């Protein structure tokens, strides 16, 4: 009878109603049992396993258990933070996060020349936004540094999402040059490209011209702005998402005083785009890209310069840089690259002095350092980071001393100039407490190189340059 239709209240059934009731009970019990076991196991997993404290992917420390106070309880902060602690510090958080991203990749169509847009907007050329109309205030606190700054730190408190939110809250006068990220699948590899929304570079030009006026011709000033990788690797049909950086740099060069030498590395790098001059998974150029820039600088500045073959080549395999955190795209994480850096042959004849940002408390250690978790932090190999002043004394005797004023892009440059200068000072424009004009004079610096990525030259960081001159 079981499989034969049965008439019941005018409706045809293919089963026996009495037997079905038993089966329904059995199936219901089995279903409840299975669901309860899964639910119970997840609950136990979350309670028993040790909680995560840091996220490598998001580059931040995770929430901590809040301290109880009556005021925090009645304001709702305490309970909110307890829940946040529990949700934020899930055991094996990064692995689950990756699994979540991988799951989400089934949402879309994946084509050979796939492009994923992360927070980017096409630039409306009919209705351009105001650019850098206000001069950034001299009172800018160090904590108010731009996105470029936050990217550098290995454990920052802000999440990428928060950083984006901060940008969108800015008023029109503080128009940011940031314009999101595009991830492209090119020749079978994924590459994340930061986009440039625009900017006149007025603040940068004014600051460098002021330095030139204050220092006179006794110090030769150079300006070397590094383009973002999107200058070369943006697919043609997405060109509307980023400005033409070369035009921007040329415009800046034309407005700098005659005594300041502009170094056009945009054209130089354009000749090497078939090589790995930019990381695919990180927002920096590669040490090879920096080499070509340094070579051009040496040529313009009339310096001795060593061929790349004379350097000791070092590889760090499996490198996945900051772009994974910014895009949260699993393709980036699943497509690591090799971080190759070059150590000059006279390294053992050089001494590297690390100072704090007030140029005190010297300690002597290497220029190229071994970093923890090199698969993610390899770019910190250069000096170990930004928040310091570094002086390298070389074995060269030519009477020339160089100060490099830079953002993190500039970290890859000094190593190529150890055979070109007697002394090299590396100063991060975001972390320097002294008056730079006085410092240059006191240290008897002969060459002053401003080198940074387009974001810094066109965006907020440029405002820090004049602060260095006046503080």
């Amino acid at each position, binding site marked *: 009878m079981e499989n034969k239709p049965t008439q019941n209240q005018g409706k045809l059934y293919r089963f026996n109603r009495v037997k079905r009731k038993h089966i329904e009970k059995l199936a219901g019990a*089995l279903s409840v049992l299975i669901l309860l076991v899964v*639910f119970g196991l997840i609950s136990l997993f979350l309670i028993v396993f040790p909680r995560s404290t840091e996220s490598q992917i998001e580059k931040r420390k995770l929430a901590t258990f809040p301290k109880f106070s009556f005021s925090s309880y009645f304001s709702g902060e305490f309970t909110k933070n307890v829940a946040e602690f529990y949700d934020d510090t899930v055991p094996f958080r990064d692995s689950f996060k990756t699994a979540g991203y991988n799951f989400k990749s089934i949402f879309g*169509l994946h084509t050979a020349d796939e492009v994923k847009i992360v927070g980017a907007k096409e630039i409306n050329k009919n209705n351009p936004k105001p650019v850098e109309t206000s001069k950034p205030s001299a009172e800018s606190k160090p904590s108010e540094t731009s996105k470029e700054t936050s990217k550098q730190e290995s454990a920052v408190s802000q999440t990428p999402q928060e950083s984006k939110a901060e940008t969108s809250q800015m008023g029109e006068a503080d128009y940011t040059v940031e314009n999101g990220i595009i991830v492209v699948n090119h020749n079978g590899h994924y590459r994340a490209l930061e986009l440039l929304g625009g900017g006149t570079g007025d603040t940068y030009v004014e600051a460098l011209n002021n330095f030139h006026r204050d220092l006179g011709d006794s110090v030769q000033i150079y300006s070397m702005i590094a383009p973002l990788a999107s200058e070369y690797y943006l697919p043609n049909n997405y060109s509307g998402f980023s400005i033409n950086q070369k035009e921007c740099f040329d415009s800046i060069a034309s407005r700098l005083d005659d005594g300041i030498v502009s170094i056009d590395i945009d054209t130089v790098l354009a000749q090497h785009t078939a090589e790995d001059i930019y990381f695919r998974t990180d927002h920096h150029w590669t040490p090879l890209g920096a080499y070509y820039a340094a070579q051009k600088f040496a040529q313009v500045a009339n310096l001795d310069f060593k061929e790349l073959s004379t350097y000791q080549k070092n590889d760090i395999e499996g490198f996945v840089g900051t772009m994974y955190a910014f895009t949260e795209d699993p393709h980036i994480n699943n497509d690591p690259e090799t971080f190759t850096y070059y150590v000059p042959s006279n390294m053992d004849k050089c001494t590297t002095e690390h100072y704090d940002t007030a140029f005190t408390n010297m300690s002597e250690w290497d220029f190229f350092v071994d970093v923890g978790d090199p698969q993610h932090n390899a770019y910190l190999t250069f000096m170990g980071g930004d928040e310091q002043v570094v002086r390298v004394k070389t074995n060269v005797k030519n009477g020339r001393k160089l100060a490099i004023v830079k953002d993190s892009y500039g970290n890859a440059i000094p190593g190529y100039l150890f055979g070109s200068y007697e002394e090299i000072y590396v100063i991060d424009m975001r972390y320097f407490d002294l008056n730079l004009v006085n410092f240059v004079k006191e240290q008897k610096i002969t060459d002053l190189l401003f080198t940074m990525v387009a974001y810094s030259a066109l965006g907020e960081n440029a405002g820090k340059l004049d602060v260095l001159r006046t503080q």
Partner: protein
Amino acid sequence: MVFSSLYFLYLFLAVVFLAYYTRKSLKQKNIVLIVASLIFYAWGEPVWVILLLFSAYLNWFMALKIAQHKETPKAQLFAGIAIGVDILLLVIFKYTGFLVENINGLLHIGIPVPHIVMPIGISFFTFQAISYIMDCYWETVPPQKHFYKFLLYLSLFPQLVAGPIVRYSVIEQEIDNRKATVSDISEGAVRAIIGLSKKVIIANSLYDIVKEYFGDFLNGQPYNDISSMSFLGTWFVVICYSLYVYFDFSGYSDIAIGLGRMFGFHFNENFNYPFICKTISEFWQRWHISLSSFFRDYLFYVPIMGKQRKYLNLFLVWFCTGLWHGASWNFIFWGLYFGIFIFIETKLGKKRMKKWNKVLTHIYSKLIIVIGFGIFCFSDMKQLGNFFINITGLGMAINGSAFWDIATWNTLLNNLFLIIFAIAVSMPILQKIKYFFNEWGNNVVYMVGKLGGTAICCYLLIMSSILLVDSTNNPFLYFRF
């Protein structure tokens, strides 16, 4: 505490579930639920839990007084006091800032605008209380004699903060006499997991698209300037937003109904595939049913404007429906916008509309609904204006914006399966599949369906939990109302 958080699911709910099912008597089970509900509410509102208790006590007490003095003017007085206080609390906590802003604007004066933080769920539990008082006044339900039982009704955590607005009559019997069968627990758990998946997998992903273009306004960020968005791009994003609101809110309702069922309560449905409607009137019979039926029963059928002025009453209902959603003009416009179409449909008559071509009625209703969600989305009047300029194609003439753009095309491709899946799930496809396994097939088919469904639910629960690891802040949209 939000349902879509690991903390709620695997700590709070797990403990409550254990505590509930280890109690033997129904009284003890009810006490477990009351304590759990108060903790649940106090977790988000440590101070305003007092307001919930006050509201519960006042309405419980007044209902008893109404019964004591039934059919006398005193009953009317007590009902008036209870409803008056309920509405007053709602106005104070939800609309004071809005009222002062508008008075300032209208009279060009500068009364300081108070920034009162609205207690979570006040719109829902107040409406439940009002429905209870009205039902007691009309004698459709007997008043509850025990305060703790009434408190259980009003504060029951599955439906406390974002509905559905459960009528007392629905759970009156179950407060005193209920038994959660294995089938209830199984069906309830499946329903809750489907609701969780709707929220975490579909709604959150759709909101990722929306915030990319319109701004992360649900998390307190300003709206993006959408003046340069393309014509089709704006349509695409507002369709995503419409789907988002549906999945977010119906997901929440599914969880609420599912959790209720796991504890033996059978709440009414709150959604019935609203996007398959052919008219706007039908849409509102399928969308947020507990709210529309509340206004129908307690406002529309009460001839406030006089029996001869039913259309005025209709617009009052839609004004209130809009205003209920938030203290902002766009919600009022949104309510009245639907009121206008329902008025037109009423004038045209159901019979005449039934004769219309089905495809055309579907296109008509979807256009009105999607544009309506645009109004619902933008509380910033400037961006609401831009939205209308874009959606009508005027943006191409005024701002020089494009017909279509590569960015939204790219977003569409990157989320193509998500959107197709979301549209499919918003239709009664799952219902048909369930019918096939449960009713049409033989016992083997039934067993396969049941166990296969359980396996899929396990997968959905695990995937939703994994996705929750990455979404520290994902409140439900209707928490705001």
